[in-house]
């Protein structure tokens, strides 16, 4: 069963901070690596999830 999980802005902000903490980078550092086409390993997953969160936050 696929259910809709409503998430608050606070949940999204918390998850965003956690992702960045897990890879040990600021958003600016991660974005710069993505722009320079230098993402490796887990940075890919982190960048993709950050973009998803930012899509939801910018509604």
């Amino acid at each position: 069963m696929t259910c809709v999980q409503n998430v608050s802005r606070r949940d999204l902000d918390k998850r965003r901070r956690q992702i960045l903490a897990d890879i040990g980078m600021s958003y600016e550092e991660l974005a710069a690596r993505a722009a320079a086409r230098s993402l490796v390993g887990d940075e890919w997953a982190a960048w993709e999830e950050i973009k998803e969160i930012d899509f939801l936050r910018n509604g």
Partner: protein
Amino acid sequence: MSKTPGDLQQQVEEFGRETAELLLATLPGLPDPPVRILQHETRTIIGPPGSKPLPLYAKGQHLADMKISIACQLDSVGRYLAVEESTFNLLAVLDRAPVLRIHYRREANVRPSAHVHFHGHRGALSHLLSQAGHDYPHDMSSLHIPVGGSRFRPGLEDFIQFLICECKFDAEPGWHKHVEAGRERWRCRQAAAVVRDVPEEAARVLRELGYTVEAPDPLPRTADKALHHW
């Protein structure tokens, strides 16, 4: 008439259910459910639970992962659930990095709205991109290979069939009929969108087929962006 928030919830749940059923009926060893729906106000992301990629097996061996992400919100007239962005990624277990990405972005301005990134190396390509003045000649994945624009882009069913038929990943018995049924749904929805883009052309073809079609007054506008953007 605008849809209510309740309608949005229903559309999202239906889309999520179709996606989950397609994945479970085609690829073995997936978590159940294989997708979760995150919603914040009127925006929704359909993707794997916990944002963890889904495993892909070849002869029973976990060799790769797939990551799907579908970002949706109500369309500009507030009636239909519109996909704003989607990503279908094939990732190698070896380095957790993409091998292939099929990406769609509804509001793409400069890049093709639907495109493929292939992550590979080819010396001759790097050489010619370098000579031509490309910004990232060493990186084949920097190329956005166009695949049909907003209306004629590949669907998730195409990606799944690519994984099974071209890459030789394991499949569930009877997967093909589920892919075909899903593709039929997808293409009918896209055909409806095309009719809204070019209603006069649609009416002309219907008249050729023997239908009686009356034009409304005023005539609906043609969707120039959908017709012109790559």
